[in-house]
């Protein structure tokens, strides 16, 4: 049961990654914005590279996750593909 649910979560995530990560708003707010934000904060400070890396990864994850939702929902509602997900046997 849990395996099934995890498998379905993975399939939905894979779909979102392949369809929406390359969309403009996600690229700008999810990848470019955190990258340059971290960079502007790091310039002029003696921060070890491993700390920088962790910072960029966590900022990118946070901003990508928040930037992707406003992209996914309007597109899927417009294309009616959200309906297709709602009628499939996934637990909400």
């Amino acid at each position: 049961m849990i395996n099934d649910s995890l498998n379905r979560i993975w399939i939905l995530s894979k779909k979102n990654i392949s369809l929406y990560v390359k969309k403009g708003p996600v690229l700008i707010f999810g990848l470019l914005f955190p990258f340059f934000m971290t960079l502007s904060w790091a310039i002029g400070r003696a921060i070890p590279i491993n700390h920088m890396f962790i910072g960029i990864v966590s900022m990118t994850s946070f901003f990508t996750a928040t930037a992707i939702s406003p992209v996914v929902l309007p597109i899927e509602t417009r294309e009616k593909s959200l309906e297709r997900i709602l009628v499939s046997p996934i637990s909400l």
Partner: protein
Amino acid sequence: MTGIFKLEDKAKIEIFNEDITTNLSKYKSNFGIVPEVSNAFSDFTVWQNLKFSGGIYGFPKEKIEKRSKKLLEQFGLLDKMHSKTKALSKGLKQRLNFCLALLHEPPILILDEPTSGLDPISVKLMRNRILQLKKEGKTILITTHDMQEAQTICDRILIMNRGKIIADESPDNIRERFKSTSTILFKIDGTLSQDQKTSLMDTFDSIKEKNEYYSISSYNILRDISNLYHYSKENNLQISDFKVKETSLEEVFIHLIKEDSISIGGLKK
């Protein structure tokens, strides 16, 4: 039933003698849904859409591939399997919708206007496949405004007006019930004077004139043909091109909707 809309408090859904109201998600794989407008992911290819659907329904990879290829072949989409969905025509998109709905082999199919706006080849293909699925024992629920389609495919027809069921019968029974409203079509040779026209209109209540033809909606076909014969004889009118048109399901539909709307005061006679 599909889980998109919330049920009212006292509403209950039973499928195969089981109450599915409380645990709808458990029964969702019993349904295959074909919407009127494609709901496949437009940026995915045909193959990716099928793979995604199969995965969501919990099928193993090999089974998805085998079943997808079979369906693509049946619906003539095999050469389009690597095309993006957004690049497909409406007919091809609808064929893909059928493939997606049938992928998990559901016992119940819900088809929303499955042939609306399609080219004749796609319509024929869809209708044949629906009839084939019916033969295989699937329960098929179709919503359609195409009465020809309903007449060809359905065993039972429910006509709805403003959310209320106003007829629930087999197509033959519905037509049988309204056989009395057949139409008599005829032409009258020569030009009629205004007086002759007025007299004709006064004699037959439901008579209408269109493109040189006169039509009479008849509730008693034998009586009206006999009346017309006597009337033409008495008034020296030469009737030609005489036809009797049996009521189609489309006319029954219009009749029922009008009747219901008049009874609830929404339409004037």
